[in-house]
């Protein structure tokens, strides 16, 4: 493996009175595509800048493999960054931008040419090398920035919201390209984003951050299917949260008395006690929506009656907002695998039944921030 392991240990960062990072520890494996995900102001960019060397941590250390890099200036770290606004040098051509790190090292011209063209090919920009940055589109600029950051053969590539300035289609395209480039160069990628779909689609693992803390680290699957707390559950995808108290425990089966819909059954492998205050979460796509009360349901299914407040058709699926008797508004997604065969069309103000398997729900902790 060409990449480095990145170990962040008890890192704190204070800007005056403001605590941007609060005791952050995480280990990013060699060659991993690792995402730092969180809303703006959660500290993810600060953490990236500390790894790059643009900021010093107020406490804690950052190790690349075995070496603490905190004392090293950015130009002495084997880490390169792709910046959000590209940060291409406007007075240099595409070729010279990418060649910049090699020129600094006084590499012979023949070698520079050879290598620059190899990286131009990697980012699919052959033929653009004589243009100036202001003659390029946003996507092309970002490709130049990627090639320039990779040409030094760093062991870690840091990407600071690299796609946020691009439109949605281009973002998808570039994201897939990034994934391919990652496979090809094999180094560690640390990807900062506030876009959960970006993070989930390409990352090996994701760290969800909020207000300077890491709330959960896991594979995209774990983060989505087993969020650690209410913040993660709500930030990643959409979810229905029902607060309640555990009343019955039977092995993996729990019954919770919720304010918003009475008793709810759920299974979980995490240990809770009767009387614990918990939050029950169920994803909108896991809920079945029908006009008739579903019959012959297994005993561990939850059923609730409601009225459609809003129905939004978006081609491959519909989204329904359904109010139950207690006034709780459920979000429900219905996939249109075969649109009308799945039952009569559900419309605004229709009476409907919502049902889901106890296995599909999960319990999360209230976020302590």
């Amino acid at each position, binding site marked *: 493996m060409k990449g480095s392991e990145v170990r962040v240990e008890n890192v704190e960062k204070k800007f005056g009175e403001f605590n941007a990072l609060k005791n952050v520890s995480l280990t990013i494996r060699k060659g991993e595509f690792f995402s730092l995900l969180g809303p703006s102001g959660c500290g993810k960019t600060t953490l990236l800048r500390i790894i790059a060397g643009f900021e010093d941590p107020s406490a804690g250390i950052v190790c690349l493999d075995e070496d603490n890099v905190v004392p090293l*200036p950015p130009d002495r770290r084997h880490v*390169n960054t792709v*910046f959000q606004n590209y*940060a291409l*040098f406007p007075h240099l051509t595409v070729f010279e931008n990418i060649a*910049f790190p090699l020129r*600094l090292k006084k590499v012979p*011209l023949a070698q520079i040419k050879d290598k620059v063209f190899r990286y131009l090919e990697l980012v699919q920009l052959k033929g653009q090398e004589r243009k100036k940055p202001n003659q390029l589109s946003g996507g092309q600029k970002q490709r130049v920035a990627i090639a320039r950051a990779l040409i030094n053969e760093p062991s870690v590539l840091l990407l600071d919201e690299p796609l946020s300035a691009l439109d949605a289609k281009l973002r998808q395209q570039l994201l897939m390209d990034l994934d391919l480039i990652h496979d090809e160069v094999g180094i560690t990628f640390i990807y900062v984003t506030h876009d959960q779909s970006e993070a989930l689609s390409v990352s090996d693992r994701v760290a969800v951050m909020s207000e300077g803390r890491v709330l959960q680290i896991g594979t995209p699957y774990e983060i989505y299917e087993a969020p650690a707390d209410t913040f993660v559950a709500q930030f990643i995808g959409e979810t229905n949260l029902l607060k309640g108290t555990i009343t019955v425990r039977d092995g993996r089966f729990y019954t919770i008395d919720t304010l918003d819909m009475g008793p709810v059954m759920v299974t979980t492998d995490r240990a809770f006690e009767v009387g614990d205050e918990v939050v029950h979460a169920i994803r909108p796509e896991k809920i079945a929506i029908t006009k008739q009360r579903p019959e012959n349901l297994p005993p561990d299914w939850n059923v609730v009656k409601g009225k459609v407040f809003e129905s939004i058709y978006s081609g491959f699926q519909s989204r329904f907002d359904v109010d139950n008797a207690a006034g709780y508004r459920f979000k429900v997604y219905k996939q249109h695998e075969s649109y009308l065969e799945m039952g009569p069309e559900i419309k605004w103000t229709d009476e409907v039944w919502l049902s889901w398997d106890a296995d599909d729900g999960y319990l999360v902790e209230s976020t302590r921030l």
Partner: protein
Amino acid sequence: MKKNYGTWYTLPLAVWISLFFVIPIAIVLIYSVLTRDYTGGVIWKFSLDSFSALANSSFIRATATTVFIALVSTAITIVLALPVAYYMARSRSNTILLLLVVVPFWVNFLIRVYAWMAVLGQEGFLNDLIRWMGLTNEPVTFLFNIWAVIIVHVYAYLPYAILPLFTTIEKFDFGLLEAARDLGASHVKSLTKIMLPNVQSGIITAVLFTFIPILGSYAIPDLIGGTDSTMLGTIVALNLRTGNNWPLASAISVVLTIITSVGLLLYFLYNQRLEKVHLQFQEETK
């Protein structure tokens, strides 16, 4: 056929440039090759007397002094203006700083020059200070030499250098310096390889805004300078007013214009050469 309106659109610009640049320069040029009228003004007869009169050692020395003062003053001004402009561009309260730079303009230029006489004079602030510190009992002569002239020029033209530098540095994306550091450039290299080329236009404007007026400076060498710091501007004024030699004054002005133009031409050629090197390199990388 479609009517060509191009001429009409450029007409206002042509009028403006003619009125303020071409005609004044033409008048000076024409006067320089006319005959001197001893009572002031000119006699409309072609003559190169004024130019041949320039070929004497005192004029050549004055030219050398003028160019030297202009070059040294400009260099010092730019070196002092750069950090100030940099700090202003990075500061959050740059409107206040901008105001502070402009405030001296509210006071008459001559009064500010006289103020320097009060500072540098034998009974001036600086001499008081030295005496108070016990360094000397005899008053030191700071005024009436070439260095006093340079100091006051630097003072007078510092704002003209700071303002264009500030506007270009303010537009500079400081993220580029981080990118350069990230890519392996030392702090100094990031400034010289990335910042300097991107603020070059501001530096050139600042040089032009200081060098050209100092080259034609008159009041400062007249009031602050001594025998070693006679500048061409002073000679022009002398010939125009007391000497009643308008053609000679015009000829000296033409020389000043030529010096400036040569400077600009050199810069232009240098830029072209850079461009050529660049193109050549692009051919090689094809």
